[in-house]
């Protein structure tokens, strides 16, 4: 899945996905949930807190 596609599925801009990947942005719980949903995984598997 491309960043563009993930961004569209998560309802954010592509830049936000880039920032998430680079660990430069702490997402809200909703965004974390949306991204995890889009990637068909869970928040605790996707993010390290």
């Amino acid at each position, binding site marked *: 899945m491309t960043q563009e596609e993930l961004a569209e599925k998560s309802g954010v*801009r592509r830049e936000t996905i880039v920032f998430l990947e680079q660990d430069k942005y702490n997402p809200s719980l909703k965004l974390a949930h949306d991204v995890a949903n889009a990637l068909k995984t869970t928040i605790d598997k996707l993010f390290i807190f």
Partner: protein
Amino acid sequence: MQLTLKQYNFIRIITVVILAIIFGQAIVIKNFLIPVILLVVGSLFLMYLRKQVKGILADERDYVIAGKAALLTMQIWSWFAVIAMFAFLALSDRDPVYQAIGMTISFSVCIFMLLYSVICRYYNKIKFTDKRLLFSAFILAIFLAFFIVGGLRLFSGEDNWVCKNGQWVSHGNPSSSAPTAECK
């Protein structure tokens, strides 16, 4: 009509540049009605374009950044304005115009801070209650009163020094002494 984000940004920049040029020319020819009309038309036009954009214009990260930037901007402006206000008020003995400038700056800071406090309170508490309308009406009334009092104070022309026939003449009951600047 559907626009991409790039197209929207391009049209927005062009629109703002055109508006700025017309604004400048209108002010040069001292026509202040044109800028007001353009401001409304331009805002509506940009709002229309915004709705035509396919995709997301701003997400939660943009709003977080915007919030931080707005807070920092307000803090910087407030400090700058307070210093400038005191400087202008200190210079008001030389020319009464400085007093008006200082007062305008101080009013702008007051409005900034008031507006910020009100909006913070709204988002923090009032938004989740059923007193939203009452709160909005109350705040609107306060701001209207503020503008009316401020406007009367600034534009009444009362209580000031006026230059007449080479001499400073008191108009009303000015709080400061006559300006030391030469009256021409």
